[in-house]
């Protein structure tokens, strides 16, 4: 398919092939959370939230989604603000684009394990628009930011017709492209606890090139070390692209918690992550390759998370 080729022949073929117009819809830039909820509730499945549009506009153009109403939530202050303090942690509005998050030096320093993922979603142009909340709501099993949200114990603040609720991020996705949002509900913000003492996190994904690709496997890990920095007191390991939803693997964490750090416990955690993976074979990789990568990336992200928990610098991939 010459879809991404810019040569003149491909351009002509593509121009002849397509009408290249989105179906008609109404657009409203909601000013408040309540306004967005009532607009969404009134239109049901015929309405959808617009944040950065890097998934939604593509889906509309390709005819994969048809809507009567697009509700832009970027004008709602709470949905588009970013705030951090070292006691309360990070409040990340669901529509805040990636570049704004990693462009904030204080936040980038406090959460290097989040930045691993936020700096590799698409290219520069995509990061200028794409939001972490949108990445979660698109609910792709391969979403790059979701495993690291899980590793960081993020929670989702959801507004709806009956008020607000807050759920752990690992409970948000229910299947490929599906999530817990009910009629009239939308994601307002993500909340992250302040990093505890001796906390470290790391996200890595495997793609066959250096950038601009979709994860074959992605793993986000976090650890909290004891005062001796030699024992693991808490751990979270989350996998992407190896199941219908991102997975939090408690068994992998259990292989580490309460034990001294060693190659052996890390290998046990990696084996537990491999056992929990339920990958499929597709154009990006086979079951065997994905299972293998799950082990490798679990080990490497744990090593990275431990190094960061000890105050060492680990570069983004």
């Amino acid at each position, binding site marked *: 398919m010459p879809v991404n080729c810019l040569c003149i022949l491909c351009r002509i073929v593509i121009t002849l092939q397509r009408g290249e117009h989105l179906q008609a819809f109404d657009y409203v830039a909601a000013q408040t959370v309540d306004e967005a909820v009532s607009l969404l509730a009134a239109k049901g499945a015929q309405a959808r939230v617009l944040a950065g549009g890097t998934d939604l506009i593509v889906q509309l153009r390709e005819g994969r989604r048809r809507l009567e109403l697009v509700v832009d939530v970027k004008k709602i202050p709470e949905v588009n603000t970013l705030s951090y303090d070292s006691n309360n942690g990070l409040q990340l509005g669901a529509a805040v684009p990636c570049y704004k998050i990693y462009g904030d030096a204080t936040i980038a320093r406090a959460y290097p394990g989040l930045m691993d993922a936020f700096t590799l979603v698409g*290219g520069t142009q995509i990061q200028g628009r794409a939001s972490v909340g949108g990445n979660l709501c698109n609910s792709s099993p391969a979403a790059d930011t979701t495993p690291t949200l899980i590793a960081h114990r993020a929670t989702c603040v959801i507004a709806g017709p009956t008020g607000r609720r807050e759920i752990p991020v690992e409970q948000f996705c229910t299947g490929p492209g599906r999530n817990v949002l009910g009629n009239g509900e939308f994601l307002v913000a993500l909340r992250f606890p302040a990093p505890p003492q001796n906390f470290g996190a790391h996200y890595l994904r495997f793609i066959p090139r250096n950038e601009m690709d979709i994860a074959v496997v992605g793993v986000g890990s976090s650890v909290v070390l004891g005062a001796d920095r030699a024992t693991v007191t808490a751990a979270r390991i989350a996998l992407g692209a190896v199941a219908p939803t991102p997975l939090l693997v408690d068994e992998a964490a259990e292989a580490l918690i309460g034990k001294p750090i060693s190659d052996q416990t890390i290998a046990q955690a990696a084996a537990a992550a491999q056992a929990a993976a339920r990958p499929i074979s597709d154009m990006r990789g086979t079951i065997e390759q994905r299972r293998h990568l799950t082990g490798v990336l679990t080990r490497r992200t744990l090593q990275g998370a431990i190094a960061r928990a000890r105050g060492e610098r680990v570069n983004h991939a």
Partner: protein
Amino acid sequence: MPKVHVQTRINGEDIDFLCESRQSLLEVLRDDLGLTGTKEGCSNGNCGACSVLLDGVLVDSCLVLAVETAGKEVATIEGLASPSKLHPLQQKFLEHAALQCGICTPGFIMAAKALLAKNPTPTEHEVRYWLAGNLCRCTGYDKIVRAVLDAATVMEKA
């Protein structure tokens, strides 16, 4: 479908236009405002040919609804050169032969402009990563990277 009235600024000029909600910024720029310097490549956010700056932030204009630009500032390739002088990036793209068919060029130049505004002295590695969202099927990228690095040197001195 009724049209929406949008007031925006494009290349420093106040511009009003009417558009349908479904129209992308790219469509309005090219088809309604006659600003055909911005190119359409893939129309799905992969190729970067339609790159523009929206309030100074590099975006793919195919993935922005034109109605979203109300009250915002858009910068396109048409705003770069003065009547008498090319922008250093344009000049260096010419000198380094950093283009063949030219479809990707406006996108590359807008992306490079955004990079140099943020980081006036990028390394080759930084240039390559920043431009990863722009595809070129003619040059093999080396000439483009060299042109951007050379333009950065010239702009630093100026």
